[in-house]
Protein backbone atom coordinates (compact mmCIF):
# COMPACT_ATOMS: atom_id res chain seq x y z
CA UNK A 1 0.00 0.00 0.00
CA UNK A 2 2.50 2.61 1.11
CA UNK A 3 5.91 2.10 -0.54
CA UNK A 4 5.94 3.78 -3.92
CA UNK A 5 2.90 5.99 -3.46
CA UNK A 6 4.05 8.19 -0.67
CA UNK A 7 6.78 10.19 -2.43
CA UNK A 8 4.47 10.70 -5.37
CA UNK A 9 1.73 11.99 -3.12
CA UNK A 10 4.20 14.36 -1.49
CA UNK A 11 5.18 15.68 -4.87
CA UNK A 12 1.57 16.24 -5.79
CA UNK A 13 0.88 18.19 -2.63
CA UNK A 14 3.91 20.34 -3.26
CA UNK A 15 2.60 21.09 -6.72
CA UNK A 16 -0.88 21.90 -5.54
CA UNK A 17 0.34 24.25 -2.87
CA UNK A 18 2.45 26.41 -5.13
CA UNK A 19 -0.13 28.51 -6.93
CA UNK A 20 1.08 31.79 -8.27
CA UNK A 21 4.79 31.39 -8.55
CA UNK A 22 4.89 33.32 -11.78
CA UNK A 23 5.96 36.63 -10.41
CA UNK A 24 9.30 35.21 -9.34
CA UNK A 25 11.43 38.17 -8.46
CA UNK A 26 14.66 37.81 -10.35
CA UNK A 27 16.81 39.83 -8.03
CA UNK A 28 20.14 40.12 -9.71
CA UNK A 29 22.93 39.55 -7.28
CA UNK A 30 25.55 42.21 -7.56
CA UNK A 31 28.66 40.70 -9.04
CA UNK A 32 31.89 41.22 -7.16
CA UNK A 33 33.45 44.52 -8.01
CA UNK A 34 35.70 44.27 -11.02
CA UNK A 35 39.41 44.15 -10.53
CA UNK A 36 40.78 47.64 -10.19
CA UNK A 37 41.82 48.98 -13.53
CA UNK A 38 45.31 47.77 -14.22
CA UNK A 39 45.73 50.03 -17.21
CA UNK A 40 47.68 52.66 -15.32
CA UNK A 41 46.39 56.07 -14.35
CA UNK A 42 45.34 58.34 -17.16
CA UNK A 43 44.28 61.97 -16.95
CA UNK A 44 40.64 61.11 -16.23
CA UNK A 45 40.09 58.52 -13.51
CA UNK A 46 39.00 55.29 -15.25
CA UNK A 47 35.61 53.92 -14.22
CA UNK A 48 35.53 50.34 -13.01
CA UNK A 49 33.24 47.88 -11.32
CA UNK A 50 29.70 46.73 -11.79
CA UNK A 51 26.63 48.92 -11.98
CA UNK A 52 23.26 47.25 -11.47
CA UNK A 53 20.47 48.98 -13.37
CA UNK A 54 16.80 48.31 -12.58
CA UNK A 55 14.85 49.47 -15.60
CA UNK A 56 11.14 49.34 -16.46
CA UNK A 57 10.16 46.52 -18.81
CA UNK A 58 9.49 48.94 -21.67
CA UNK A 59 13.11 50.10 -21.49
CA UNK A 60 14.61 46.65 -21.91
CA UNK A 61 15.69 46.95 -25.54
CA UNK A 62 17.03 50.51 -25.35
CA UNK A 63 18.84 49.97 -22.06
CA UNK A 64 20.43 46.75 -23.31
CA UNK A 65 21.85 48.77 -26.19
CA UNK A 66 22.94 51.65 -23.93
CA UNK A 67 24.52 49.20 -21.48
CA UNK A 68 26.68 47.57 -24.12
CA UNK A 69 27.66 51.00 -25.46
CA UNK A 70 28.61 52.01 -21.92
CA UNK A 71 30.69 48.86 -21.41
CA UNK A 72 32.45 49.42 -24.73
CA UNK A 73 33.36 52.95 -23.73
CA UNK A 74 34.48 51.96 -20.23
CA UNK A 75 36.19 48.58 -20.67
CA UNK A 76 36.60 47.71 -16.99
CA UNK A 77 32.92 48.19 -16.18
CA UNK A 78 30.01 45.85 -16.34
CA UNK A 79 26.34 46.77 -16.49
CA UNK A 80 23.87 44.29 -15.01
CA UNK A 81 20.35 44.94 -16.23
CA UNK A 82 17.18 43.86 -14.42
CA UNK A 83 13.95 44.56 -16.28
CA UNK A 84 10.46 44.14 -14.84
CA UNK A 85 7.32 46.16 -14.29
CA UNK A 86 8.14 49.42 -12.51
CA UNK A 87 6.12 48.54 -9.42
CA UNK A 88 7.84 45.14 -9.20
CA UNK A 89 11.19 46.88 -9.29
CA UNK A 90 10.10 49.31 -6.58
CA UNK A 91 9.14 46.36 -4.39
CA UNK A 92 12.46 44.67 -5.04
CA UNK A 93 14.46 47.80 -4.20
CA UNK A 94 12.38 48.46 -1.09
CA UNK A 95 13.08 44.89 0.03
CA UNK A 96 16.82 45.49 -0.32
CA UNK A 97 17.68 44.32 -3.83
CA UNK A 98 21.12 45.67 -4.76
CA UNK A 99 20.30 48.34 -7.34
CA UNK A 100 22.52 51.27 -8.27
CA UNK A 101 20.24 52.95 -10.80
CA UNK A 102 16.46 52.91 -11.14
CA UNK A 103 14.63 53.93 -14.31
CA UNK A 104 10.85 53.97 -13.96
CA UNK A 105 8.11 54.00 -16.59
CA UNK A 106 6.16 56.58 -14.62
CA UNK A 107 6.76 59.28 -12.08
CA UNK A 108 4.40 57.63 -9.58
CA UNK A 109 6.63 54.62 -8.96
CA UNK A 110 9.72 56.82 -8.74
CA UNK A 111 7.87 58.93 -6.17
CA UNK A 112 7.36 55.81 -4.03
CA UNK A 113 11.14 55.37 -3.75
CA UNK A 114 11.77 59.08 -3.23
CA UNK A 115 9.21 59.02 -0.45
CA UNK A 116 10.95 56.02 1.11
CA UNK A 117 14.22 58.04 1.00
CA UNK A 118 15.86 55.43 -1.21
CA UNK A 119 16.79 57.85 -3.99
CA UNK A 120 19.90 60.00 -4.23
CA UNK A 121 19.17 63.56 -5.33
CA UNK A 122 16.52 64.54 -7.86
CA UNK A 123 15.26 62.06 -10.47
CA UNK A 124 15.84 63.25 -14.05
CA UNK A 125 13.09 62.86 -16.64
CA UNK A 126 14.70 61.39 -19.74
CA UNK A 127 11.91 60.11 -22.01
CA UNK A 128 8.20 60.18 -22.68
CA UNK A 129 5.85 57.62 -24.15
CA UNK A 130 2.29 57.80 -25.45
CA UNK A 131 -0.35 55.23 -26.23
CA UNK A 132 -0.98 53.86 -29.67
CA UNK A 133 -3.54 51.39 -31.01
CA UNK A 134 -2.03 48.07 -32.01
CA UNK A 135 -3.98 45.86 -34.41
CA UNK A 136 -3.12 42.59 -36.16
CA UNK A 137 -1.50 43.29 -39.58
CA UNK A 138 -4.76 42.46 -41.38
CA UNK A 139 -6.72 44.85 -39.11
CA UNK A 140 -9.80 42.54 -39.04
CA UNK A 141 -12.05 45.08 -37.31
CA UNK A 142 -10.99 47.98 -39.61
CA UNK A 143 -9.90 50.22 -36.77
CA UNK A 144 -8.99 53.75 -37.87
CA UNK A 145 -9.49 55.92 -34.82
CA UNK A 146 -9.79 55.77 -31.05
CA UNK A 147 -13.57 56.05 -31.34
CA UNK A 148 -13.60 52.91 -33.53
CA UNK A 149 -12.49 50.90 -30.50
CA UNK A 150 -15.86 51.51 -28.86
CA UNK A 151 -17.79 50.04 -31.81
CA UNK A 152 -19.87 47.01 -30.82
CA UNK A 153 -18.26 43.65 -31.52
CA UNK A 154 -14.70 44.95 -31.49
CA UNK A 155 -12.53 42.84 -29.21
CA UNK A 156 -10.29 45.38 -27.56
CA UNK A 157 -7.77 44.56 -24.86
CA UNK A 158 -6.40 47.21 -22.52
CA UNK A 159 -4.29 47.44 -19.40
CA UNK A 160 -6.10 47.36 -16.05
CA UNK A 161 -6.47 50.83 -14.48
CA UNK A 162 -4.14 49.74 -11.66
CA UNK A 163 -1.07 49.75 -13.93
CA UNK A 164 0.43 52.82 -15.67
CA UNK A 165 -0.70 51.97 -19.21
CA UNK A 166 -4.22 51.38 -17.91
CA UNK A 167 -4.21 54.68 -16.07
CA UNK A 168 -3.20 56.36 -19.33
CA UNK A 169 -6.03 54.56 -21.14
CA UNK A 170 -8.46 55.81 -18.51
CA UNK A 171 -7.28 59.38 -19.01
CA UNK A 172 -7.73 59.21 -22.77
CA UNK A 173 -11.21 57.70 -22.35
CA UNK A 174 -12.22 60.52 -20.01
CA UNK A 175 -10.72 63.22 -22.24
CA UNK A 176 -12.53 61.90 -25.32
CA UNK A 177 -15.75 60.90 -23.62
CA UNK A 178 -15.39 57.39 -25.06
CA UNK A 179 -16.04 54.33 -22.95
CA UNK A 180 -14.25 51.17 -24.01
CA UNK A 181 -15.73 47.78 -23.23
CA UNK A 182 -12.52 45.77 -23.04
CA UNK A 183 -12.75 41.98 -23.29
CA UNK A 184 -9.70 41.78 -21.05
CA UNK A 185 -7.85 44.16 -18.75
CA UNK A 186 -4.31 42.87 -18.51
CA UNK A 187 -1.82 43.66 -15.79
CA UNK A 188 1.03 44.43 -18.14
CA UNK A 189 1.41 46.07 -21.52
CA UNK A 190 3.28 43.04 -22.86
CA UNK A 191 0.24 40.87 -22.13
CA UNK A 192 -1.92 43.29 -24.13
CA UNK A 193 0.51 43.12 -27.02
CA UNK A 194 0.58 39.31 -26.79
CA UNK A 195 -3.20 39.16 -27.21
CA UNK A 196 -2.89 41.27 -30.37
CA UNK A 197 0.08 39.48 -31.93
CA UNK A 198 -1.62 36.11 -31.37
CA UNK A 199 -4.70 37.44 -33.18
CA UNK A 200 -7.00 36.89 -30.18
CA UNK A 201 -7.86 40.57 -29.94
CA UNK A 202 -8.92 42.96 -32.71
CA UNK A 203 -7.06 45.80 -31.08
CA UNK A 204 -5.03 46.67 -28.02
CA UNK A 205 -3.90 49.88 -26.41
CA UNK A 206 -0.14 49.82 -25.90
CA UNK A 207 2.74 52.29 -26.02
CA UNK A 208 4.17 53.63 -29.26
CA UNK A 209 7.46 51.94 -28.36
CA UNK A 210 5.78 48.54 -27.96
CA UNK A 211 4.36 48.80 -31.47
CA UNK A 212 7.84 49.60 -32.76
CA UNK A 213 9.39 46.66 -30.90
CA UNK A 214 6.76 44.24 -32.23
CA UNK A 215 7.86 45.01 -35.78
CA UNK A 216 5.55 43.71 -38.49
CA UNK A 217 3.62 41.45 -36.11
CA UNK A 218 1.25 44.33 -35.40
CA UNK A 219 0.20 47.51 -37.12
CA UNK A 220 0.25 50.74 -35.13
CA UNK A 221 -2.49 53.33 -35.43
CA UNK A 222 -1.56 56.64 -33.84
CA UNK A 223 -4.43 58.78 -32.57
CA UNK A 224 -4.34 62.49 -31.72
CA UNK A 225 -6.07 62.01 -28.36
CA UNK A 226 -3.01 60.14 -27.08
CA UNK A 227 -1.40 63.44 -26.06
CA UNK A 228 -3.95 63.58 -23.22
CA UNK A 229 -1.88 61.01 -21.37
CA UNK A 230 1.85 61.37 -21.76
CA UNK A 231 3.93 59.06 -19.60
CA UNK A 232 7.18 60.48 -18.29
CA UNK A 233 10.18 58.24 -17.54
CA UNK A 234 12.45 59.35 -14.67
CA UNK A 235 15.87 57.93 -13.79
CA UNK A 236 17.82 58.26 -10.53
CA UNK A 237 20.65 56.79 -8.50
CA UNK A 238 19.57 54.50 -5.66
CA UNK A 239 20.64 55.78 -2.24
CA UNK A 240 22.13 52.47 -1.11
CA UNK A 241 24.37 52.24 -4.17
CA UNK A 242 27.97 51.30 -3.42
CA UNK A 243 29.28 52.67 -6.67
CA UNK A 244 27.82 56.15 -6.94
CA UNK A 245 30.38 57.36 -9.45
CA UNK A 246 29.52 54.59 -11.86
CA UNK A 247 25.79 55.07 -11.29
CA UNK A 248 26.12 58.77 -12.11
CA UNK A 249 28.14 57.95 -15.24
CA UNK A 250 25.47 55.55 -16.48
CA UNK A 251 22.68 58.06 -15.81
CA UNK A 252 24.69 60.66 -17.75
CA UNK A 253 24.84 58.25 -20.69
CA UNK A 254 21.07 57.78 -20.63
CA UNK A 255 20.24 61.48 -20.30
CA UNK A 256 23.00 62.58 -22.69
CA UNK A 257 22.94 62.88 -26.44
CA UNK A 258 23.70 59.21 -27.03
CA UNK A 259 20.85 58.10 -24.80
CA UNK A 260 18.52 60.52 -26.53
CA UNK A 261 19.40 59.08 -29.92
CA UNK A 262 18.84 55.45 -28.90
CA UNK A 263 15.58 56.31 -27.14
CA UNK A 264 14.23 58.42 -30.01
CA UNK A 265 15.06 55.64 -32.46
CA UNK A 266 12.93 53.30 -30.36
CA UNK A 267 9.97 55.66 -30.49
CA UNK A 268 10.31 57.47 -27.17
CA UNK A 269 9.66 61.20 -27.02
CA UNK A 270 11.77 63.80 -25.24
CA UNK A 271 10.36 65.37 -22.08
Amino acid at each position, binding site marked *: *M*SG*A*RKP*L*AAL*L*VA*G*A*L*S*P*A*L*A*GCAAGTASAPAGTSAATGTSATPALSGTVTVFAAASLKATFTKLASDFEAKNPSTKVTLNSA*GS*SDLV*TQITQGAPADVFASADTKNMAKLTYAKLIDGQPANFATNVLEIAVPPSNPASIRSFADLAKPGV*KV*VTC*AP*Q*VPCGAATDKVEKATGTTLK*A*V*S*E*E*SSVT*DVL*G*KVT*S*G*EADAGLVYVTDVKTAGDKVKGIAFPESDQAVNTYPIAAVGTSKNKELAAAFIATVTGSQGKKVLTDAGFGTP
Partner: protein
Amino acid sequence: MNHRSGSGYTGIPPWIYAIAAAGGLFVLLPLVAMVAKVNWPQFVPLVTSESSLTALGLSLRTSAASTVSCVVLGVPLALVLARSPFPGQRLLRAFVLLPLVLPPVVGGIALLYTFGRQGLLGKNLELAGIQIAFSTTAVVLAQTFVALPFLVVSLEGALRTAGNKYEAVAATLGARPSTVLRRVTIPLVLPGLASGAVLSFARSLGEFGATLTFAGSLQGVTRTLPLEIYLQRETDADAAVALSLVLVAVAVAVVGLSYRHPHTGAAPERALQ
Protein backbone atom coordinates in the same frame (compact mmCIF):
# COMPACT_ATOMS: atom_id res chain seq x y z
CA MET B 1 -0.20 -5.09 4.33
CA ASN B 2 -0.98 -2.02 6.33
CA HIS B 3 2.02 -2.01 8.62
CA ARG B 4 1.78 0.52 11.40
CA SER B 5 4.72 2.76 12.08
CA GLY B 6 5.00 4.94 15.15
CA SER B 7 6.17 2.61 17.89
CA GLY B 8 9.73 1.46 18.49
CA TYR B 9 12.59 1.59 16.05
CA THR B 10 12.25 4.12 13.23
CA GLY B 11 15.61 3.65 11.59
CA ILE B 12 16.01 7.38 11.10
CA PRO B 13 19.37 8.83 12.16
CA PRO B 14 19.02 11.96 14.38
CA TRP B 15 20.61 14.33 11.85
CA ILE B 16 17.82 13.54 9.42
CA TYR B 17 15.40 15.18 11.85
CA ALA B 18 17.45 18.38 11.81
CA ILE B 19 17.34 18.59 8.01
CA ALA B 20 13.68 17.61 7.97
CA ALA B 21 12.96 20.45 10.39
CA ALA B 22 14.82 22.85 8.12
CA GLY B 23 12.77 21.60 5.19
CA GLY B 24 9.54 22.11 7.09
CA LEU B 25 10.60 25.61 8.10
CA PHE B 26 11.50 26.42 4.52
CA VAL B 27 7.86 25.93 3.57
CA LEU B 28 6.29 27.31 6.74
CA LEU B 29 8.39 30.42 7.26
CA PRO B 30 7.26 32.27 4.10
CA LEU B 31 3.65 31.55 5.06
CA VAL B 32 4.26 32.86 8.57
CA ALA B 33 5.97 35.94 7.13
CA MET B 34 2.94 36.55 4.94
CA VAL B 35 0.52 36.17 7.83
CA ALA B 36 2.65 38.66 9.79
CA LYS B 37 2.22 41.16 6.95
CA VAL B 38 -1.57 40.98 6.99
CA ASN B 39 -3.23 44.26 7.84
CA TRP B 40 -5.69 42.72 10.33
CA PRO B 41 -7.86 45.79 11.08
CA GLN B 42 -8.49 46.11 7.34
CA PHE B 43 -8.62 42.37 6.64
CA VAL B 44 -12.38 41.94 6.44
CA PRO B 45 -13.06 45.00 4.26
CA LEU B 46 -10.17 44.01 2.00
CA VAL B 47 -11.31 40.45 1.37
CA THR B 48 -14.99 41.35 1.15
CA SER B 49 -14.59 44.11 -1.42
CA GLU B 50 -16.70 43.62 -4.50
CA SER B 51 -13.78 42.75 -6.77
CA SER B 52 -12.38 40.24 -4.25
CA LEU B 53 -15.68 38.45 -3.76
CA THR B 54 -16.29 38.35 -7.51
CA ALA B 55 -12.84 36.85 -8.03
CA LEU B 56 -13.30 34.31 -5.23
CA GLY B 57 -16.71 33.28 -6.59
CA LEU B 58 -15.34 32.91 -10.08
CA SER B 59 -12.40 30.88 -8.79
CA LEU B 60 -14.64 28.48 -6.89
CA ARG B 61 -17.05 28.06 -9.82
CA THR B 62 -14.37 27.51 -12.45
CA SER B 63 -12.39 25.17 -10.19
CA ALA B 64 -15.50 23.08 -9.57
CA ALA B 65 -16.17 22.91 -13.32
CA SER B 66 -12.55 21.97 -14.01
CA THR B 67 -12.69 19.24 -11.37
CA VAL B 68 -15.74 17.76 -13.08
CA SER B 69 -13.94 17.91 -16.44
CA CYS B 70 -10.90 16.27 -14.87
CA VAL B 71 -13.00 13.41 -13.51
CA VAL B 72 -14.81 12.93 -16.82
CA LEU B 73 -11.59 12.88 -18.85
CA GLY B 74 -9.22 11.56 -16.22
CA VAL B 75 -11.01 8.42 -15.03
CA PRO B 76 -10.98 6.76 -18.47
CA LEU B 77 -7.39 7.89 -19.00
CA ALA B 78 -6.26 6.41 -15.70
CA LEU B 79 -8.14 3.16 -16.41
CA VAL B 80 -6.49 2.79 -19.80
CA LEU B 81 -3.07 3.61 -18.39
CA ALA B 82 -3.39 1.28 -15.41
CA ARG B 83 -5.21 -1.69 -16.88
CA SER B 84 -4.61 -2.22 -20.56
CA PRO B 85 -1.04 -2.48 -21.74
CA PHE B 86 -0.65 -1.20 -25.28
CA PRO B 87 2.23 0.03 -27.42
CA GLY B 88 3.09 3.64 -26.69
CA GLN B 89 1.56 3.52 -23.22
CA ARG B 90 4.67 4.92 -21.56
CA LEU B 91 4.72 7.73 -24.06
CA LEU B 92 1.05 8.53 -23.48
CA ARG B 93 1.62 8.60 -19.73
CA ALA B 94 4.58 10.93 -20.18
CA PHE B 95 2.47 13.32 -22.25
CA VAL B 96 -0.47 13.22 -19.86
CA LEU B 97 1.85 14.07 -16.98
CA LEU B 98 3.60 16.83 -18.90
CA PRO B 99 1.46 19.69 -17.51
CA LEU B 100 2.79 18.76 -14.05
CA VAL B 101 6.26 19.93 -14.95
CA LEU B 102 5.47 22.36 -17.74
CA PRO B 103 5.53 26.05 -16.79
CA PRO B 104 1.84 27.07 -16.86
CA VAL B 105 2.67 29.93 -19.23
CA VAL B 106 3.79 27.36 -21.79
CA GLY B 107 0.50 25.54 -21.27
CA GLY B 108 -1.31 28.80 -21.88
CA ILE B 109 0.53 29.40 -25.13
CA ALA B 110 -0.21 25.85 -26.27
CA LEU B 111 -3.91 26.28 -25.45
CA LEU B 112 -3.92 29.60 -27.30
CA TYR B 113 -2.70 27.91 -30.47
CA THR B 114 -5.33 25.20 -30.04
CA PHE B 115 -8.47 26.99 -28.93
CA GLY B 116 -7.60 30.60 -29.79
CA ARG B 117 -9.26 32.47 -32.62
CA GLN B 118 -6.46 31.56 -35.02
CA GLY B 119 -5.85 28.20 -33.34
CA LEU B 120 -6.00 24.66 -34.61
CA LEU B 121 -9.52 23.96 -33.32
CA GLY B 122 -10.45 27.54 -32.52
CA LYS B 123 -10.71 28.47 -36.20
CA ASN B 124 -13.44 25.87 -36.74
CA LEU B 125 -15.16 26.62 -33.45
CA GLU B 126 -15.25 30.27 -34.46
CA LEU B 127 -17.01 29.30 -37.70
CA ALA B 128 -19.51 27.33 -35.66
CA GLY B 129 -20.17 30.45 -33.61
CA ILE B 130 -18.34 29.28 -30.51
CA GLN B 131 -15.90 31.78 -29.07
CA ILE B 132 -13.60 30.59 -26.36
CA ALA B 133 -11.08 33.40 -26.12
CA PHE B 134 -11.68 35.78 -23.21
CA SER B 135 -14.54 33.66 -21.86
CA THR B 136 -14.99 31.77 -18.61
CA THR B 137 -14.77 28.58 -20.70
CA ALA B 138 -11.16 29.51 -21.45
CA VAL B 139 -10.44 29.67 -17.72
CA VAL B 140 -11.94 26.22 -17.20
CA LEU B 141 -9.92 24.82 -20.12
CA ALA B 142 -6.70 26.26 -18.71
CA GLN B 143 -7.43 24.86 -15.26
CA THR B 144 -8.40 21.45 -16.59
CA PHE B 145 -5.20 21.30 -18.62
CA VAL B 146 -2.96 21.85 -15.62
CA ALA B 147 -5.04 19.85 -13.12
CA LEU B 148 -5.77 16.70 -15.14
CA PRO B 149 -2.45 14.97 -14.35
CA PHE B 150 -3.16 15.20 -10.63
CA LEU B 151 -6.30 13.15 -11.03
CA VAL B 152 -4.75 10.67 -13.45
CA VAL B 153 -1.69 10.04 -11.26
CA SER B 154 -3.70 9.57 -8.05
CA LEU B 155 -6.22 7.30 -9.67
CA GLU B 156 -3.73 5.25 -11.65
CA GLY B 157 -1.79 4.63 -8.43
CA ALA B 158 -4.96 3.54 -6.65
CA LEU B 159 -5.95 1.25 -9.52
CA ARG B 160 -2.55 -0.44 -9.59
CA THR B 161 -2.55 -0.89 -5.82
CA ALA B 162 -6.05 -2.37 -5.83
CA GLY B 163 -5.14 -4.92 -8.47
CA ASN B 164 -7.73 -6.62 -10.67
CA LYS B 165 -8.55 -9.80 -8.71
CA TYR B 166 -12.04 -8.68 -7.72
CA GLU B 167 -12.78 -7.57 -11.23
CA ALA B 168 -11.68 -10.93 -12.61
CA VAL B 169 -13.98 -12.69 -10.15
CA ALA B 170 -16.89 -10.43 -11.08
CA ALA B 171 -16.27 -11.14 -14.74
CA THR B 172 -16.20 -14.91 -14.22
CA LEU B 173 -19.53 -14.55 -12.41
CA GLY B 174 -20.93 -13.09 -15.61
CA ALA B 175 -20.78 -9.36 -15.06
CA ARG B 176 -20.32 -7.24 -18.17
CA PRO B 177 -17.30 -4.90 -18.32
CA SER B 178 -19.44 -1.79 -17.74
CA THR B 179 -21.07 -3.42 -14.71
CA VAL B 180 -17.67 -4.44 -13.33
CA LEU B 181 -16.47 -0.87 -13.72
CA ARG B 182 -19.53 0.57 -12.02
CA ARG B 183 -20.00 -1.99 -9.26
CA VAL B 184 -16.44 -3.13 -8.51
CA THR B 185 -13.64 -0.99 -9.89
CA ILE B 186 -14.93 2.50 -9.10
CA PRO B 187 -16.10 1.71 -5.54
CA LEU B 188 -12.73 0.04 -4.92
CA VAL B 189 -10.69 3.09 -5.89
CA LEU B 190 -13.12 5.72 -4.61
CA PRO B 191 -10.68 7.10 -1.99
CA GLY B 192 -7.99 7.51 -4.66
CA LEU B 193 -10.48 9.14 -6.98
CA ALA B 194 -11.63 11.49 -4.25
CA SER B 195 -8.14 12.61 -3.30
CA GLY B 196 -7.27 13.02 -6.97
CA ALA B 197 -10.34 15.18 -7.47
CA VAL B 198 -9.51 17.29 -4.43
CA LEU B 199 -5.95 17.82 -5.67
CA SER B 200 -7.27 18.79 -9.08
CA PHE B 201 -9.57 21.29 -7.43
CA ALA B 202 -6.69 22.75 -5.44
CA ARG B 203 -4.49 23.00 -8.49
CA SER B 204 -7.30 24.67 -10.46
CA LEU B 205 -7.79 27.15 -7.66
CA GLY B 206 -4.14 28.16 -7.84
CA GLU B 207 -3.91 28.24 -11.61
CA PHE B 208 -2.40 31.49 -12.82
CA GLY B 209 0.01 31.39 -15.73
CA ALA B 210 -2.07 29.50 -18.26
CA THR B 211 -5.15 31.55 -17.42
CA LEU B 212 -3.30 34.84 -17.78
CA THR B 213 -1.83 33.82 -21.13
CA PHE B 214 -4.87 32.15 -22.59
CA ALA B 215 -8.01 33.62 -21.03
CA GLY B 216 -7.10 37.19 -20.23
CA SER B 217 -8.23 39.08 -17.16
CA LEU B 218 -11.65 40.69 -16.79
CA GLN B 219 -13.57 41.10 -13.57
CA GLY B 220 -16.32 38.52 -13.20
CA VAL B 221 -15.44 36.73 -16.44
CA THR B 222 -11.83 35.58 -16.40
CA ARG B 223 -10.17 37.28 -13.43
CA THR B 224 -9.82 34.49 -10.89
CA LEU B 225 -8.43 35.01 -7.40
CA PRO B 226 -4.74 34.51 -8.31
CA LEU B 227 -5.10 37.02 -11.16
CA GLU B 228 -6.86 39.44 -8.83
CA ILE B 229 -3.98 39.08 -6.34
CA TYR B 230 -1.46 39.73 -9.08
CA LEU B 231 -3.30 42.87 -10.15
CA GLN B 232 -3.99 44.18 -6.63
CA ARG B 233 -0.30 43.89 -5.87
CA GLU B 234 0.33 46.73 -8.33
CA THR B 235 -1.52 49.26 -6.23
CA ASP B 236 -2.59 47.74 -2.93
CA ALA B 237 -0.12 45.38 -1.32
CA ASP B 238 -2.40 44.97 1.72
CA ALA B 239 -5.25 43.67 -0.42
CA ALA B 240 -2.90 41.29 -2.24
CA VAL B 241 -1.61 39.83 1.04
CA ALA B 242 -5.11 39.51 2.50
CA LEU B 243 -6.37 37.69 -0.59
CA SER B 244 -3.29 35.48 -0.64
CA LEU B 245 -4.12 34.41 2.88
CA VAL B 246 -7.64 33.48 1.79
CA LEU B 247 -6.21 31.36 -1.02
CA VAL B 248 -3.75 29.68 1.35
CA ALA B 249 -6.56 28.93 3.80
CA VAL B 250 -8.71 27.38 1.10
CA ALA B 251 -5.76 25.35 -0.23
CA VAL B 252 -4.81 24.09 3.25
CA ALA B 253 -8.43 23.13 3.96
CA VAL B 254 -8.75 21.32 0.65
CA VAL B 255 -5.49 19.41 0.87
CA GLY B 256 -6.02 18.68 4.57
CA LEU B 257 -9.39 17.18 3.71
CA SER B 258 -7.93 14.81 1.17
CA TYR B 259 -5.02 13.60 3.30
CA ARG B 260 -6.57 12.19 6.40
CA HIS B 261 -4.40 9.14 6.68
CA PRO B 262 -5.22 7.31 9.90
CA HIS B 263 -1.60 6.97 10.94
CA THR B 264 -0.43 10.55 10.33
CA GLY B 265 -2.35 11.97 13.28
CA ALA B 266 -3.41 15.08 11.32
CA ALA B 267 -1.63 18.42 11.51
CA PRO B 268 -0.76 19.43 15.08
CA GLU B 269 -1.36 23.14 14.30
CA ARG B 270 -4.99 22.43 13.71
CA ALA B 271 -5.27 20.48 16.92
CA LEU B 272 -4.04 23.54 18.79
CA GLN B 273 -6.71 25.87 17.49
